[in-house]
């Protein structure tokens, strides 16, 4: 790789890269992010390579290994360009078939994705509802580039935004453009990025300023930032370079958790390549502009994502938040002015500069512009990373992209915003997803976690789960956050064990409010959200747990028992066969008997009895210790 000395040389290189590639030669694209690799993408890559070599197809088929495309449910998958043919959930044998078919210009019909509703096969990725209903400004680029090849990135318009900025040579313009785009931080709080940069640009200059990319991503079940880093690390570097040019920052840091080894590896390679090309480091493209980026690895504490804790952690201190003001733009790393932005925020910067702010702002709603990536998990058909315009409704994501409930049970709620977000009921699925609407509804945007829950989810148990996470992850400095989360968990534990009282419920609410009010950082201030939101929308579940000692979702094991309704039992013996402990006895055509003392509440009998045609819906869940046979006791 030769160092580029001017923007002309860059453009010449870009032209050469584009000319060198024939877009008509079919390209086998294999997503191999951490998720893809875990589900077997490495095997597919190996087979694809072997087949291509063995059949001397090197000039006829190209291979590209990329980061995650977002459709995790379908991994390991393969995409064939230029047609955009999509093959989900492949094994080694099928891969051989596909390479053969591609070399002959065929499509393997029986391996295509099948729509679970219409049962029709769909060929093109773009026609699959999961992809069709998204707007993939950021994620779609993951398909186009091999993260360890900077030329791929340049071929698809990479670094053009940086060159545009350098050619303009107007620092103020960069900040103004970012402000005009209306971009708000994707890390959770939604602070306008342009405004933050303006403050940094204005901050006193003496001894340097820092730019940080926050890739701590500690929310359980959220991995948007990881896939952007793994799949397209150059876009983060380019975003930071543009930011540095606009704000006059002198040093960049990417703070990434050690649990992301692949992201770190790709970042290290990407930084090396950018440096080698003269796009990073001293005198970038001969313009005299210098900026370099360093990786700092965090040990994976949730609280280190909070910006002041992150600063401490970078400095080598304990990751503990501190009082703001002073804000990081006034006093950040080593006391120097510092602007911290989320990975996804950075990924949006090159898009804004390339498209222009006005074009960018057309997507989304007026105060919430652009797109946002969510990690859609839980009880939906299609799980994965989804990118939609801001202001899309929850329903559009859950039903349109997610494809509705995964099983037979109805969707009851979604939880947004990570561990300290809130649960919103299905009745509110028309709510547009933007910072204001979510927080008015008692939840938060957070970094974009979205967990779908159905009728088999107990909301008290959900609140307890998140409270466990928070009581372990609170830094522990504020007494109210540390003890408060412990005490809230304790009360929830009592309620799920049938030991709760209505007085405790009031106490829980009172305590939740105080923890929210009195904690110092965002963690403590939002820690009560799981409780407050479930109390707001699902209070009856709490009351049922307390008064009737019953968990209607049959999650809290102490709070329900299975019984056989004699009149309904058809004596089919299905349940006897599935019971792992032999708790059910009886003979064919006779009413079966369920021995409570042996039952471990594994749900197996309930499933067969209620969903099998020959069984009679005879097994029901009732409050423990009740002999009543009513269905809704």
């Amino acid at each position, binding site marked *: 790789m030769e160092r580029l000395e001017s923007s002309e040389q860059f453009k010449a290189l870009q032209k050469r890269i584009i000319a060198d590639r024939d877009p008509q030669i079919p390209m086998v694209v294999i997503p191999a992010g951490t998720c893809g690799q875990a589900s077997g993408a490495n095997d597919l890559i190996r087979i694809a390579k072997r087949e291509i070599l063995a059949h001397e197809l090197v000039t006829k088929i190209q291979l590209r290994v990329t980061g995650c495309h977002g459709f995790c449910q379908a991994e390991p998958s393969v995409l064939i360009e230029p047609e955009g043919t999509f093959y989900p959930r492949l094994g080694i044998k099928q891969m051989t078939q596909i390479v053969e078919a591609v070399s002959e210009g065929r499509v393997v019909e029986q391996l295509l994705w099948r729509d679970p509703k219409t049962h029709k096969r769909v060929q093109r990725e773009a026609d699959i509802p999961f992809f069709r209903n998204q707007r993939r400004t950021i994620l779609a680029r993951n398909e186009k580039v091999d993260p360890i090849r900077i030329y791929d990135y340049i071929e698809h318009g990479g670094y053009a935004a940086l060159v545009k900025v350098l050619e303009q040579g107007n620092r103020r313009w960069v900040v103004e453009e970012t402000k005009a785009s209306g971009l708000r931080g994707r890390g959770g709080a939604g602070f306008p990025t342009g405004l933050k940069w303006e403050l940094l640009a204005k901050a006193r200059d003496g001894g340097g300023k820092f730019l940080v990319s926050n890739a701590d991503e500690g929310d359980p079940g959220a991995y948007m930032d990881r896939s952007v880093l793994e799949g397209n690390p150059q876009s983060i570097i380019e975003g930071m370079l543009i930011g540095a040019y606009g704000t006059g920052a002198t040093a960049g840091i990417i703070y990434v958790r050690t649990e992301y080894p692949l992201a770190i590896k790709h970042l290290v390679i990407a930084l090396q390549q950018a440096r080698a090309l003269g796009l990073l480091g001293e005198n970038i493209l001969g313009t005299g502009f210098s900026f370099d980026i360093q990786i700092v690895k965090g040990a994976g504490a949730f609280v280190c994502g909070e910006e002041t804790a992150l600063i401490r952690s970078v400095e080598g201190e304990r990751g503990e938040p501190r009082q703001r003001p002073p804000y990081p733009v006034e006093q950040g790393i080593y006391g120097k002015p510092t602007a911290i932005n989320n990975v996804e925020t950075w990924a949006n910067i090159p898009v804004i500069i390339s498209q222009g702010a006005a074009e960018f702002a057309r997507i989304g709603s007026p105060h919430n512009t652009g797109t946002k990536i969510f990690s859609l998990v839980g009880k939906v058909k299609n799980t994965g990373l989804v990118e939609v315009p801001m202001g899309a409704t929850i329903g559009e994501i859950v039903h349109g992209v997610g494809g509705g409930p995964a099983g037979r049970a109805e969707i009851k709620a979604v939880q947004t915003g990570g561990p300290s977000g809130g649960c919103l009921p299905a009745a509110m699925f028309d709510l547009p997803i933007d910072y204001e609407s979510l927080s008015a509804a008692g939840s938060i945007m957070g970094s974009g976690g979205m967990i779908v829950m159905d009728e088999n989810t107990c909301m008290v148990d959900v609140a307890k789960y998140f409270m466990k996470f928070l009581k372990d992850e609170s830094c522990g*400095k504020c007494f109210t956050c540390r*003890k408060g989360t412990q005490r809230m968990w304790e009360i929830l534990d009592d309620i799920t064990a049938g030991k709760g009282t209505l007085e405790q419920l009031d106490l829980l609410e009172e305590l939740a409010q105080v923890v929210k009010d009195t904690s110092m950082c965002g963690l403590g201030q939002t820690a009560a959200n799981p409780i407050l939101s479930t109390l707001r929308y699902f209070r009856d579940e709490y009351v049922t747990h307390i008064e009737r000692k019953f968990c209607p979702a049959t999650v809290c094991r102490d709070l329900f028992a299975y019984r056989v309704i004699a009149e309904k039992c058809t004596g089919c013996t299905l349940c006897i066969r599935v019971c792992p402990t032999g708790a059910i006895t009886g003979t064919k055509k006779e009413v079966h008997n369920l021995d409570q003392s042996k039952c471990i509440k594994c749900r197996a009998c309930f499933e067969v009895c209620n969903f099998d045609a020959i069984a009679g819906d005879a097994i029901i869940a009732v409050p423990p210790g009740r002999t009543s046979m009513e269905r809704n006791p």
Partner: protein
Amino acid sequence: MITLTMNGLPVTVEEGSTLLEAARFFGFPIPTLCHLEGLTPYGACRLCLVEVGRGDKAKLVTACTYPAADGLVVRTGSSRVIRARKMILELLLASCPQSKVIQDLAAAYEVRQQRFRQEYEDCILCGLCVRMCEEQMRAKAIGFRGRGERRSVGTPFDAPSPACRLCGGCMYVCPACQLRCTYHEPEKAICGSCANLSPPCLEKREFDDLMCFMAPCVACEIRKG
């Protein structure tokens, strides 16, 4: 100089003052637990809460760490402050009922009930000892370890610290220790951190003239008994 409004009164303080300093200077009482003059404010106990701002923007902040700023509107005893403070005291009583300091504060705020499961912890993690050790004694022998529920004070790996000079400063400032050391069950008498440090009294054998600031002290009792 900075001018702000405190409980409706315009007050002027020096630049760099905290709200706590401002309030104390003008005679507004604010209770504290983790604050000690001479040590860096830390903001751990949250007792010194005051309400700043107006309307929707109003929020509770800790007076000991919040810098006074021009035009700030501060209320030191609003109902929101009192409600939160009472809950904090209730939580403190639930965890550390033996502490005289906490008992007195709870009494002053008329906290008469404690609705949580009773615990008898011997540290509220206020961090006074840690700061005392680092900032005044220049030893940095003890520090915080762990996070969340597992956070504790002690020496690295619980080994006796070579940096510790057995000055006893940590125990002197502790709002919970004093009572811990007169605890009614002798085997529980010595708290985690002083055990690590071996309190000065344990060396009385060698240094007869050593001064002990704890009276009565169960550590002494154990040795005698």
